[in-house]
């Protein structure tokens, strides 16, 4: 069993390393490093986006939640799809049109001030670290469970993997690792669901009936996981607006040539990831029926291993070859999923440090191309080492709060500043800093006094603080904007930015070219 699992792990690792080797030879410029040269097709970027979004948390977490809590798990999964409505219609095209490599680019293009970029850097790093640590911890737990490898070694292994992908292959390697992983994940899910449906004679409704019979009607109504009536709404708010503020998702829009491709790639994502999220309900109900809640809980109280256990069952059960093969492949894919997601996060973070902080804030953009790539690689190492260290420290600590933190900070700090930058003429640098601070502080504070961290003694009753902290973020942005005067400079910046965001045409550049041509 172990040998087989190791073999599948090694094969997947080898494939990703081959991709990295191939990508490394194509990665020379900053544009190739951060944005894969900006020439991906909508389909490739859509698969990579889906790969980014179908993290292990979604893969294992959603089906686990459904298996233990029923409908609330399904609500979780559908929120993750609805999240892309705002990305598709409001964020993707302006981000594609105005930025080059990072979230900070968009804010800096609008404000033309280094301090505004600094706020975006803070938002990027906080969100990405909060996103990355639980993934590392999850990988550690998963590998430990499967291979008996100690947690520490597993985390270091993930760290080395992601550093190698990003360091040598940049965005090209990261993208193709995501694509491979997305395909593997979708194939695995299809096979699993097909076998599950075959088991129930293609009557999916019988799963609902059996779950109701075994665990009562409460499984098929909301309120199993969420205690507060506003919890579901707050979850929806934090997903729908938070994903629009996730820096590593924005980075994906720089890999396509134009706004049209960006929007088509979101459509790909919505169908690929959406259908996957939809079947997590069936998988969850299936594992509750066939594996049983007590068996799921006994291995992992959070239910995260419901899907692998169902795979084991459908393959023929423990001890059979089919079961082992199936279980091993599912776990190896989950591991690959984690690797790919942390690689994307590492790349986005190193962009914030190298491109935003070092090149643009400290050196005012005057750094040679060769040096920029070198700095980007150094930043990748740095981010990787920090992430591994935090991942090691996270052992045994409840990292659930960090998952909530990542998405809440994105919704409460990043989303207000990017939304207002795109649409509000009056918005200015003070507002960017005010909004970032207000959103960041309120979401961190509320997440830590909330039920995710303080359990039963929570001072704040709602798990996801976004329902309160996002308005605070907008309020902070508004107050600080109004405290500073509206300048004509700001007006011009908005006009230029707005036209560029909506049409993709850079008026300033055209005017500049005309001037230099006539001079």
């Amino acid at each position, binding site marked *: 069993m172990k040998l087989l699992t190791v073999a599948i792990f090694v094969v997947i690792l080898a494939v990703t390393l081959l991709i990295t080797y191939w990508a490394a030879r194509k990665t020379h410029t900053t544009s190739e490093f951060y944005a894969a040269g900006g020439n991906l097709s909508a389909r490739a970027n859509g698969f990579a986006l889906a790969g980014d979004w179908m993290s292990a948390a979604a893969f294992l977490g959603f089906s686990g939640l459904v298996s233990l809590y029923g409908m609330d798990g399904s609500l979780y999964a559908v929120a993750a799809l609805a999240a892309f409505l705002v990305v598709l*219609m409001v964020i993707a095209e302006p981000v594609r049109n105005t930025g080059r490599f990072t979230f900070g680019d968009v804010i800096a293009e609008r404000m033309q001030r280094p301090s505004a970029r600094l706020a975006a850097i803070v938002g990027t790093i906080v969100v990405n670290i909060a996103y990355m640590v639980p993934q590392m911890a999850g990988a550690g737990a998963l590998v430990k469970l499967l291979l008996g490898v100690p947690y520490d070694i597993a985390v270091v292994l993930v760290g080395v993997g992601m550093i190698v992908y990003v360091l040598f292959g940049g965005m090209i390697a990261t993208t193709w690792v995501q694509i491979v992983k997305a395909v593997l994940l979708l194939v695995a899910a299809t096979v699993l669901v097909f076998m599950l449906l075959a088991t129930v004679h293609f009557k999916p409704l019988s799963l609902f009936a059996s779950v109701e019979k075994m665990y009562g009607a409460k499984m098929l109504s909301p309120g199993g996981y969420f205690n507060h009536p506003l919890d579901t709404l707050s979850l929806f708010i934090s997903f729908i607006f938070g994903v629009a503020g996730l820096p590593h998702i924005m980075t994906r829009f720089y890999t396509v040539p134009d706004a049209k491709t960006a929007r088509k790639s979101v459509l790909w994502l919505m169908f690929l990831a959406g259908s996957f999220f939809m079947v997590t309900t069936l998988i969850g109900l299936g594992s509750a029926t066939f594996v049983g809640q007590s068996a799921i809980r006994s291995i992992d109280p959070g239910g995260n291993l419901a899907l692998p256990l169902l795979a084991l069952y459908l393959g023929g059960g423990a001890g059979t070859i089919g079961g082992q093969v199936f279980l091993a492949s599912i776990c190896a894919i989950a591991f690959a999923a984690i690797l790919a997601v942390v690689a994307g996060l590492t790349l986005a973070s190193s962009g914030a440090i190298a491109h935003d902080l070092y090149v643009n804030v400290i050196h005012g953009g005057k750094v040679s191309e060769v040096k920029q790539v070198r700095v980007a690689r150094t930043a990748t190492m740095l981010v990787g080492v920090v992430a591994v260290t935090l991942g090691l420290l996270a052992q045994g600590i409840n990292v659930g709060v960090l998952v909530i933190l990542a998405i809440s900070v994105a919704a409460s700090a990043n989303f207000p500043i990017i939304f207002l930058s795109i649409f509000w003429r009056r918005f200015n640098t003070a507002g960017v800093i005010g909004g970032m601070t207000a959103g960041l502080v309120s979401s961190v504070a509320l997440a830590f006094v909330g039920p995710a961290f303080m359990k039963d003694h929570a001072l704040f009753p709602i798990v996801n603080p976004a329902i309160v902290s996002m308005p605070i973020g907008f309020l902070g942005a508004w107050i600080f904007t109004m405290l500073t005067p509206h300048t004509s400079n700001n007006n011009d910046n908005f006009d230029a930015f707005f036209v560029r965001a909506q049409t993709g045409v850079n008026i300033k550049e055209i005017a500049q070219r005309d001037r230099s041509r006539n001079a």
Partner: protein
Amino acid sequence: MWFKPSGEIPAYRRPTKSTGPNQVLSALRSNAAQGEIEILGGWPGLCLELAHVARKRKRRPTNRCAQIKIMETSMIELLPLVPVDSMSSPTDNGPEAPTSQSVSRSPSFRKLMSIKRRAIAPLLGISLMYSFGVALLSGFAHDVMSTKVSGSFTLGYLLVLGIYGVCWLVAIAYVVVANRLFDSQALCVVASISGEAS
């Protein structure tokens, strides 16, 4: 052989960095915007780049505003780019260079924004209201959500399934509308820049 240019060969400004179809197209658009060329067919030097775009996009993108017509790729001969010296630069004695303000106030840009508003507001409004509505129901109306629809299948699950449907339909509708209207109107904005600035 390619099309014969109708009339004189217009001044063609070579794009600064012709790295990909998008840059080429945007360079072409900005040329069109300057009123220097009217992109109607193939010119020496131009068709090579247009062919890039055509291959990338497969279909022939036609636009009544910029009037870009892309010739068949089979008609392309590889000829070096011929940057023609500007015969009459619009910035010399013609209209002034466009400013961001003039563009953002131009009728064509306003029309673009109104198209976008009219497409996005209802699509986003309906889909978000439905999703948040289901979220509120599942928080405050457990009884409604646990009403049985068919066998053990509850109304709650039907509504959740509805979110998938709404998200997918809205996303398709948006992409179709945006592909049809947004891009061509954005081209109109670009094409009208020089006219508006005068």
